[in-house]
């Protein structure tokens, strides 16, 4: 905007400075990630030698998948990945169903008490997870669960302890409510006159036109679930149920070589980055929409 009025040569000088600045910042943000991926293909000795020159960021020298092979041999890495995939996908899917259904009830239907319920849900925005983590730990350690051997008490070391507390999400409900309220009410009215039940209206009328908000909520729940750390370190001690981020921390503490660590880091990061690049618009718009909170 400022450059608009500056004509001719100065304009070009400003432009060059701007691009230089953008590139320099780009280097700062991108090179650590580039270093991680490039190093994952190098033998350890070379990683250490390369840090003293620009070679650290270049795929040169002896490149191989050896680090990846060893990272998967050293620890049940594939198990950790599958655990996280399972926990994340179930939470996202159940979350979409439960939260959109609640939002439908809160925004389309009319029932006594909905105003209070919505106000309470919005009020919970100011309770960060860190506040409730410790009492929740005690709570889940005492809750009953019906398993293969009948009723057992205590949810620790399981999949459901990583899933169930995160299905309902006040902010997801809020995003759905905002979206459903913006839909033309005539849609509902017409279906109602045709004799459709409320649940049918939710499934056949509302869901098909709500793609964007479902995508936003899915993205906003997927990232924190995949990256979850504080909760699983407290409730999951057994390797069997351990998610990737906790597995990574254990792997790191085994004191293995940097090449293998970089391979592990790349394995769990690159797919997310690719997903981000593919769905960039949706990702950035989701994040921007979280800015309307409060």
């Amino acid at each position, binding site marked *: 905007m400022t450059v608009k009025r500056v004509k001719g040569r100065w304009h070009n000088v400003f432009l060059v400075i701007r691009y230089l600045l953008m590139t320099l*910042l780009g280097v700062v943000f991108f090179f650590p990630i580039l270093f991680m991926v490039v190093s994952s293909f190098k033998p350890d000795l070379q990683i250490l030698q390369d840090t003293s020159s620009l070679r650290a960021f270049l795929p040169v020298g002896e490149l191989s998948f050896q680090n990846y092979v060893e990272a998967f041999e050293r620890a049940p890495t594939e198990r950790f990945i599958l655990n996280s995939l399972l926990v994340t996908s179930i939470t996202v899917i159940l979350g979409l169903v439960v*939260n959109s259904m609640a939002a439908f009830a809160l925004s389309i*239907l009319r029932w006594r008490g909905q*105003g209070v319920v*919505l106000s309470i849900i919005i009020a919970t925005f100011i309770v960060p997870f860190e506040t409730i983590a*410790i009492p929740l730990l005690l709570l889940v350690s005492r809750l009953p669960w019906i398993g293969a051997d009948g009723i057992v008490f205590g949810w620790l070391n399981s999949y459901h302890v990583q899933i169930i507390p995160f299905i309902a999400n006040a902010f997801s409900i809020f995003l759905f409510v905002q979206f459903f309220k913006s839909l033309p009410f005539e849609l509902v009215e017409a279906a109602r006159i045709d004799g459709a039940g409320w*649940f049918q209206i*939710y499934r056949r009328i509302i869901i098909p036109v709500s793609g964007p908000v479902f995508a936003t909520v899915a993205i906003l729940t997927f990232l924190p679930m995949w990256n979850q750390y504080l909760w699983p370190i407290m409730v999951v001690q057994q390797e069997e149920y351990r998610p990737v981020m906790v597995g990574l921390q254990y792997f790191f503490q085994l004191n293995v070589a940097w090449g293998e660590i970089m391979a592990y880091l790349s394995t769990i990061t690159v797919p997310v980055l690719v997903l981000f690049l593919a769905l960039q618009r949706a990702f950035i718009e989701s994040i921007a929409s979280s800015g309307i909170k409060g």
Partner: protein
Amino acid sequence: MTTATEISRKRTGFWATLSLNDRRTEVITGWLMASPAIFLLLTFLIIPFFLAFVFAFTNQRLISPNPTEYVGLRNFSRLLTVRLLILEPLTNEATGEPVRDENNKLIYPRVREFTRNNPDYPQYNGLKQWLAWNIGQKRWVLLAGDPVFLRSLYNTFLFALVVVPVQGGLGLVLALIVNQRTTGVNIFRTIYFMPVVVSLVVVSILWRFIYDGQNGLLNNVLQFITFGAFEPIDWLGNPSTALPAIMAMSIWQGVGFHMVIWLAGLQTIPPVLYEAASVEGANGWQQFRYVTWPGLRNTAVFVLVTITMQAFGLFTQIDVMTRGGPLNATTTVIFQAVQRGFEKQDIAYGSAISVVFFIMVLSVALIQRYLTRERD
């Protein structure tokens, strides 16, 4: 919050056509469809929230053979008690002169003599030394019930004090840079945003290597830039650089998020205002000062508040990179809550820390409310 009334207004016509039976069905369906979410939020958010306040006043443990008891404010007084103890140097009883050691330093009575079951000083009982200064001939000792927790409060506030303005400001600078229609800008925006989608655990481990004292990337880059003049630093092993190193990394990881929020804010400013400013002959700075900045007011408050809350919750980086060390230089409130509540299984004490944390967050939220209040 006004949903119910808005909808009722919109729907009055439709509502009137419904039979009593239809209305009853609607009420029942409403409760049924909302009930899974209500039940889950109640069990896993609202009840634990109140439990934090209940446990904080008890001696609840994760596993204990003894019944839980109400202990009043004991946990909070241990967390927050601070007392000053002024020690006089030891004097020679015959001459009245202060005694000196072989290095000609004054000798003071041990703090322990005041804090371990000394019946003359019940107010110091059980406290530990937090800080000490020599003022004149006297030694001022600040005693605390839990010096490590106070250190974690200090570290958390220090972290927020640096990270909030720097990350918020840098985010705005990035947003202003990429908020222009020139070629390639989208690529840069994507790159600046990339660290946001990388997990904090991954980032922390990657930066352990970058900060490494021997082969670390940062030391090598700095040596390269200064032609070898730079002395390598063990960034995370040194109490004076560990927290700043974690601050820098956290800003690197999180700033792209706030760039996007600022961008969304920038796009709400009508272009007409810039055109008007241009016609009036405003320069770049004046445009920013009188058009851009006033239009970003609510965005600014939102950005500052979200960064503050994230900063208060600092945990993952600490747990992965330093475990609170060296010498408690990087311990934080949430790290302490997890240490006590989970690792030492002291749910009550961990809950008391959580309550203190919630009060911190609540104060920030109230300040936000005040700053963004509707002004008539």
